[in-house]
């Protein structure tokens, strides 16, 4: 199968959906000629013109609001938010407006829009350009949240997001845009709420999102050397969450670590861990462990920044302890 980058995969998904459905359009800052600072959207304006690939002023709440209104009245907008950190600027439009229209109208209004943005630290971009804020939006009922872990997921999830009748937020890891993966030429979609078992194993379940899937896979390879067989599962969407696949795995392995690049406290890892506690408690041999980013703003200095994110080494050490029966959080 051909291999393409995550960036190309996103580009293809959007182009295919724009060809298929004339109501799909895209807007954001420097999306047209510039094709975004990460060059993900290069070439789209040549095919679809500036009527459908629209450069906006630096007015995030404004253009997200426009997307909500356009979506409520028959269009399918994709909004490009240059950095995930700018989610804070658009919270009202996203969480008070987009997320609630369907419910507040008793099911009469829909907001079929996609907000594509990014996440991920270690790019030396400091505290306001490095955050992973998926937990913030996942907290709000009415929003769906996808977190592609490779080019394959990025394409299939984007196409599903565009066809979904709800507001969907997609977080791409900005360090993965140039990573290649096999992606079929033929059309495919990835349904929301279906986790993917990346690697099978009997001893411990590593549940990981986005780029943390790579971290978990590296850890699993190292653990295999020591005779510990780790199962790696990528939920692919955190809302909706495929609980069944996660629970089934934990019933088999009896141990789990949840890895996500958002801050650990009150985060995605906490949510998944507590669901496992509630629904698989009697199958567990050890507490479910969370591994998120440190609860600090992302520091600029490389000497500090690298300490803040989960690493394969840290996962290996934690897995070893859990499998060895050591109490990690013993009082």
């Amino acid at each position, binding site marked *: 199968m051909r291999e393409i980058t995550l960036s190309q995969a996103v580009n293809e998904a959007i182009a295919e959906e724009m060809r298929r459905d004339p109501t799909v359009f895209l807007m954001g*800052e420097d999306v047209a000629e510039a094709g975004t600072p990460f060059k993900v959207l290069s070439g789209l304006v040549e095919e679809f013109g500036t009527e459908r690939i629209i450069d906006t002023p630096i007015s995030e*709440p404004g253009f997200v609001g426009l997307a909500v209104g356009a979506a409520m009245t028959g269009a399918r907008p994709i909004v490009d938010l240059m950095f995930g950190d700018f989610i804070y600027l658009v919270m009202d439009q996203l969480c008070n407006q987009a997320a609630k229209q369907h419910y507040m109208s008793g099911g009469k209004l829909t907001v079929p829009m996609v907000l594509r943005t990014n996440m991920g630290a270690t790019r030396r971009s400091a505290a306001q350009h490095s955050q992973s804020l998926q937990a913030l939006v996942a907290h709000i009922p009415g929003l769906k949240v996808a977190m592609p872990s490779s080019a394959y997921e990025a394409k299939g999830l984007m196409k599903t997001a565009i066809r979904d009748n709800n507001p969907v937020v997609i977080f791409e890891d900005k360090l993965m845009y140039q990573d290649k993966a096999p992606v079929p030429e033929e059309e495919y979609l990835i349904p929301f709420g279906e986790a993917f078992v990346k690697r099978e194993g009997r001893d411990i379940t590593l549940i990981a999102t986005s780029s943390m899937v790579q971290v978990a896979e590296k850890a699993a390879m190292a653990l295999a050397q020591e005779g510990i067989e780790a199962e790696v599962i990528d939920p692919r969407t955190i809302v909706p969450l495929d609980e069944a696949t996660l629970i089934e795995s934990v019933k088999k392995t009896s141990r789990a670590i949840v890895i996500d690049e958002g801050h650990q406290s009150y985060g995605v890892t906490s949510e998944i861990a507590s669901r496992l506690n509630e629904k698989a408690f009697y199958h567990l041999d050890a507490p479910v462990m969370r591994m998120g980013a440190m609860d600090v703003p992302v520091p600029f200095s490389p000497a500090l920044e690298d300490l803040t994110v989960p690493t394969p080494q840290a996962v290996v050490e934690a897995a070893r302890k859990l499998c060895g029966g050591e109490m990690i959080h013993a009082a």
Partner: protein
Amino acid sequence: MAKAKTNTEDYLRMYRQMVRIRTFEDNANQLYLSAKMPGLTHMYSGEEAVAVGICEALTDDDRITSTHRGHGHCVAKGAEFKEMFCELLGKAEGYCRGKGGSMHIADQSHGNLGANAIVGGSMGIATGSALRAKLQGSDDVTVCFFGDGATAQGLWYEVMNMAALWKLPVIYACENNGYSEYTKTEEIAAGSITARAEAFGIEAHQVDGQDVMAVNALAQKLVARARKGEGPFFIELMTYRYHGHHVGDINREYYRSKDEEKDWKDNRDPIIRFRAHLVSEGIASEDEIDAINAEIEKDAAEAVAYAEAAAYPDVSEVDMHVYAA
């Protein structure tokens, strides 16, 4: 209050400050190109007369807020090269102990409340600083620097309204360099930018941002009036950035022509223009100016070498400073 910049010493200081900014940026760009600087940075080269003309009208008690393109503001407000280069390289002796980097550099000792990586993100902070001055009966003035692109942020209109209602001592300084990232200003700004401030009853000025004397003369007047409670004010400074949007933006002909860049550099450079003025007025000789330039280059080279050799923060600092004591 700062004196009017009419004597030799003041003129030479303005010249020095502009050259210090240009030299700082040349070195920062070199650090990026030689892969010694982590991340990306935005060069202020070409816009020196804006920061210097304004900051030379301020005292250390006056505050400024800065932007992602913030090295110029930082130098102009009095910062030292050593601490600045240390910050850019993420070293412990940097102004922010390496935690902020280029986009968050701040220098409280000279009243610089910090650069900001959110476009328009400091408009509230600057206006709040002015509110504090008024509430506490202090006569300091706050200058809020931002770009033309930032005028698209709704926050500005909210804070301008309050600043005008309450006559706050804040000066909004819009550095209109013709572009926000890869887009021309006329494609993202409807109508007139000065008229937007005027709609709130705020006195607005447009000035040639490549003419340090014009910028400084205007800033002196407005700062003095703001101190007396006649603010807020708005200044649109017409200027140009010589480099790409950031140091990595090298192939940029798709949005900006080489001819246009050459025209600004050859015909409107703020340093060349001011230097010619100093010489023709007999304020300094060519030799004296060359000596100033050489001394600044030496200072910068020493500061870079110092920063390269300086230590990174200890790992224990990673969770320090999340909460104040």
